[in-house]
């Protein structure tokens, strides 16, 4: 068994009724235990690529293989079980606002049928990791954006998934919170979790110095993203 966790081979995708391919002929690999950033302008196909990995959509052409499984062969009844192997983090946090922080983080464990004591222990460990142990009884809306995102991250990692996918996790956060969140991803990666983060925060990407997969109009290119702070500068040249 090789060490490749995610493999895209000549993957193309278009949405029904869409004008053209959102992704065309995408090839890339992510090693197990690797952390990479997915960059590109809005509409370049970052979210679509993550959706294909999470089986929220299926590739029209080419094949996506995750942990040795060809996703084209995962039956719809097995999609939920597949998704439980992946931790997902969203730009809008996707928390359940009628339950406490604790209950939000506990949800993936409840779905998996863990025992109550086990759940309490694991949830507290996850909340401790993201530094929110003291807020376990709070309702999500009483938290700041950065804290809500950390709850989302705790929920994603509480089941110790092999892979974390994050779609614009810092899109709604101020720079300081964004940096905390990115450092958090780096810490998870340090203990062996593979991480793929789609982001516009180029300055953070550059500071972390991880591999960058850059998309332009649905294709992977060798070009490098330009940080927002330097866009006008680059255009002047």
């Amino acid at each position, binding site marked *: 068994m090789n060490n490749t966790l995610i493999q895209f081979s000549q993957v193309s995708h278009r949405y029904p009724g869409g004008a053209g391919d959102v992704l065309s002929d995408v090839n890339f690999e992510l090693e197990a235990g690797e952390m990479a950033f997915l960059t590109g302008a809005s509409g370049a196909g970052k979210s679509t690529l993550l959706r294909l990995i999470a089986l929220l959509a299926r590739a029209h052409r080419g094949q996506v293989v995750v942990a040795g499984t060809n996703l084209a062969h995962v039956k719809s009844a097995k999609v939920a079980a597949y998704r439980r192997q*992946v931790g997902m983090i969203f730009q809008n946090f996707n928390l359940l606002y009628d339950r406490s922080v604790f209950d939000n983080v506990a*949800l993936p464990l*409840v*779905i*998996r*049928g863990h025992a109550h004591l086990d759940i309490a222990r694991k949830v507290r460990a996850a909340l401790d990791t993201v530094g929110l142990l003291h807020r376990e009884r709070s309702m999500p809306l009483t938290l700041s954006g950065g804290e809500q995102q950390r709850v989302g991250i705790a929920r994603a990692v509480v089941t110790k998934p092999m892979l974390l996918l994050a779609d614009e996790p810092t899109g709604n956060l101020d720079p300081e919170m964004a940096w905390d969140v990115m450092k958090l991803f780096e810490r998870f990666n340090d*203990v*062996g979790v593979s991480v793929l983060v789609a982001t516009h925060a180029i300055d953070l990407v550059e500071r972390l110095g991880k591999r960058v997969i850059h998309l332009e109009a649905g294709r992977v290119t060798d070009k490098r993203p330009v940080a927002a702070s330097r866009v006008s500068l680059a255009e002047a040249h």
Partner: protein
Amino acid sequence: MARATDQAEAKPGFLTRLTQDHARVFFFSLGKLVNAPGNALFTAAVIGIALALPASLQLAVNNFQRLSYSWQGSVQMSLFLKGTVDEARGRDLATELSKYGSVKSTQYLSREQSAAEFREFSGFGEALDLLDANPLPAVIVVTPLPGRNAAQMAELSGMLSALPEVELAQLDQHWLERLDAILRILQRVGLLVGALLSVAVLVIVGNTLRLDVEARREEIEVMKLIGAPDSFVRRPFLYGGCWLGLLGGWFALLLLTLGLFVIDRPAQELAALYGSSFRISGPTTSTVLGIVAGGVVLGWLGAWWTVAKHLSAIQPR
């Protein structure tokens, strides 16, 4: 951060997990109901009315049946004796029969007494005068004990007609048979109304839960995003349907009790006018259980039907 170290996760066994999850959903859905009872109570009231209608029909039929049984006891049976049986034997037989288990009393009418009664009551007295001899047989009038049902009466009648002295045993209960037939029709009507209103309950529960599913669309999307299987997403709604059905069943029982309370006194007065001590009887234990269980089952079915349809339509974007 201890990651990927405890691979052998100590998950409880299948049965424990199932029990734990059902207990959790039980309290979760009950909590939702208690926290926002308005809509649910309204739905439960409608279900209650729908369940109370067929149940009250059934109750009415049961009571009429009891009434017809008690009337059955007042029915008399006429044993027409053979011409060869003389008066002394006839009187002996009447005395013998009065000692039978299900017989209350007997009365012997000789041929002459029969003729006299015929003259008095039939209005065809002159017809007898045209005949040479008295054509009427001697009769033993048998009054059965009260409270016998149709089958017991038929058995008694069969036994009496088999006696060697008896030419013909006549049981005058045609009108009771007619009442029985009418009650059978009413029973069928009750079943039909019950079936139709059960469908109505399914629709009511379905509609309430459809709105519930819509209101919780985001929550459902999030759950599907983090890998919740359909059964997990569905379960709270199924429990919600059961709660609605249970509340509806209780409401139906409440309505029935109120109805009985309102009707009881006039019914008693009516019975008194007929010199009867008949009282309307309430639903039996099995009827009560049937109404409540029926409500729960219908709630569950309605929930399943609507949730299966609408949950699959909600996919995370």
